[in-house]
């Protein structure tokens, strides 16, 4: 895709027209359903009609190669505000607001307003060549689709959970109970499956016709592209390389993620609360899982694909990918902070060889980091088990509790390292290149 603007506008026109029309059609459907429902929905149907008209207008403009876009001031402001840290904690704050206000946000009209805002933001941004260049890379298209799908399904799941929680408070059973009656699989399920398959095949065929599979230059082992990115579903791990060394980010943490996922039913093992959407009865487990899934899995993938460019530098959404931009920080290890900044002494240097003595000297150099890790992985869990989480320990037993707390501490290590990197440019807490151990 070229950055020359007239050529770009011509190339993007069809995509924009399509997307604006899809948004208009969806608002049209929403309006039609509102009109049929009557009451307050009637009033809102008017708003959806207005949205439909707006999107149609935008589609027409886009078709004439004058698509509406975000003003430059807003784009610059957004780019200036974004960074790896603001993105992480901004998203955390947004999710927290959504969670706390869920009773409000699950109302269909509120959800639809959010949906419209997202589509508006996306479609307007797409008129920017740099935004379009990253987002419309063939392999990134599914990620965009995933954001919208995830938004919709999170809304759908939360709406049902909120309703069930209300019913449970009032002493009724969850909504799923109303459908306990049996029905025959033929035709009730088989036809749904058939329709699903036909619809999905149609989606795939259209997608295949519209977006060509990428094929770059033939493989050339002596020409390293900058940046070289892992496939998108592993880019979250690659993003963790910013904060951890390859052994942690690429091997230990993925193993723990898989292990942690597999352990969920053995850590949250009570039979109650199975088989219906609910949040109230399982806040802790819910929040931990959602934090891991949305913040540590999905968000890191988004950062890695949409915001990282050459040299793995961070770029805003509307910025050109300048190949000369280098990551800024000069990072230091905890040993330096401890010996030099805190004690005002030189970092001890272990001798070049000499088995045990050398080993001890290395441990001595890293003494601060080792102490921090001991407190973090041993001290805090022990204290938690006696205080805040006493009930969990009693309910779960020692083995389960230990596994859970250690996994939780590993999970929290990432945001903690982010904060430390941000505030004191910390690289590694324990840094023993002699043994390839970095933490």
């Amino acid at each position: 895709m070229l950055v020359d603007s007239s050529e770009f506008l011509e190339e993007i026109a069809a995509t924009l027209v399509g997307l604006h029309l899809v948004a208009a059609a969806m608002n049209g459907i929403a309006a039609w359903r509102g009109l049929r429902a009557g009451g307050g929905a009637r009033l809102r149907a008017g708003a959806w009609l207005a949205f439909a008209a707006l999107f149609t207008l935008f589609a027409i403009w886009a078709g004439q190669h004058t698509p509406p876009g975000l003003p430059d001031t807003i784009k610059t402001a957004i780019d200036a505000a974004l960074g790896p840290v603001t993105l992480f904690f901004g998203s955390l704050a947004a999710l927290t607001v959504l969670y706390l206000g869920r009773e409000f946000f699950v109302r269909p009209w509120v959800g639809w307003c959010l949906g419209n805002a997202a589509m508006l933001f996306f479609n307007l941004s797409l008129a920017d060549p740099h935004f379009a260049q990253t987002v419309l890379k063939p392999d990134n298209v599914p990620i965009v689709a995933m954001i919208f799908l995830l938004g919709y399904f999170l809304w759908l799941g939360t709406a049902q959970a909120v309703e069930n929680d209300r019913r449970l408070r009032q002493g009724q059973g969850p909504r799923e109970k109303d459908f306990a009656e049996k029905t025959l699989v033929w035709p009730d399920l088989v036809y749904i499956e058939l329709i699903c398959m036909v619809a999905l095949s149609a989606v795939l065929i259209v997608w295949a016709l519209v977006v060509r599979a990428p094929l770059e230059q033939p493989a050339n082992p002596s020409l390293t592209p900058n940046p070289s990115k892992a496939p998108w579903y592993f880019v979250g791990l690659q993003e963790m390389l910013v904060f951890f060394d390859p052994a942690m980010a690429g091997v230990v943490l993925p193993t723990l993620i898989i292990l942690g996922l597999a352990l969920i039913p053995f850590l949250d093992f009570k039979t109650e609360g199975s088989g219906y959407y609910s949040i109230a009865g399982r806040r802790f487990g819910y929040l931990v899982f959602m934090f891991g899934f949305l913040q540590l899995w999905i968000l890191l993938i988004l950062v890695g694909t949409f915001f990282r460019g050459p040299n793995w530098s961070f770029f805003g959404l509307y910025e050109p990918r300048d190949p000369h931009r280098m990551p800024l920080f000069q990072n230091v290890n905890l040993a330096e902070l401890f010996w030099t900044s805190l004690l005002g002494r030189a970092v001890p240097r272990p001798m070049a060889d000499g088995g045990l003595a050398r080993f001890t000297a290395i441990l001595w150099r890293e003494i601060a980091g080792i102490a921090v890790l001991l407190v973090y992985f041993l001290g805090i869990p022990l204290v938690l088990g006696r205080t805040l989480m006493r009930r969990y320990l009693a309910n779960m037993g020692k083995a389960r509790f230990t596994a859970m707390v250690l996994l939780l501490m590993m999970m929290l290590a990432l945001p903690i390292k982010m904060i430390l990197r941000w505030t004191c440019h910390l690289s590694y807490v324990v840094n023993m290149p002699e043994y390839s151990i970095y933490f």
Partner: protein
Amino acid sequence: MSFGDKVRQSQLWKSIFRHPAPVDRRNRVLVILSNLILHLHPVAIQKHAVRLHYTWCMGGISAFLFLVETITGVLLMFYYRPTVQWAYNDMLALRDVVSLGVLREIHRWGAHAMVITVWLHMLRVFLTGSYKPPREFNWVIGVVLLVLTLLLSFTGYLLPWDQLSIWAVTVGSNMAKAAPMLGHEGPGQQLLTIDGVDLITSGSDVRYALLGARSVGEEALNRFYVLHCIALPLLATFLMAVHFWRVRKDGGISGPL
């Protein structure tokens, strides 16, 4: 007698379908019981288990996408040769020469879509608490299926043999170098020595096992091809069979007690 009735009365039809059309209760039961594919289902289920609001149909969609990948994958194998000399050229041919020129597209987008639908399926199972007893084991099988889905995608990513694929796989497999004990740059590697001779070197670590060489080349292409087209699909098929079996044996789709 109408034409349709004639067909349904014919010996050929009756030899395939063992009972009349599923228009009444008895035959709707029989159709599920007597058909190999349909008998993956129970005959009757709770109404709430067929609600799209509940399951989002994501497990079913993942399974369907796997089927699409299998079919398009077999068709692609007719054209594709996994050698450094031919792989890229065969991609060009698939794009420019082969009729039905969207095979590669359907296969690639189907794979991406499957990754997403499997994640959404996991999210739904979590949100409904469906991993709780007695379904713990099926959740674990699911986690393995998730890993297999990612590995299938990853191994397939190398096959076009363009810059995108070899460098993505290089980034991915470089992490294996740093595996504790097993990678030649990983922690603990120094412990595995005999008389000063390293056991784990760049020629004997896990990355070497994965790539069949010290870097991504012909050997890696062959290994990834075999993993992608044979080993992983077989394993995934087997585990899906177990997964579906267990859905039934654990009492069908979860629901409130």
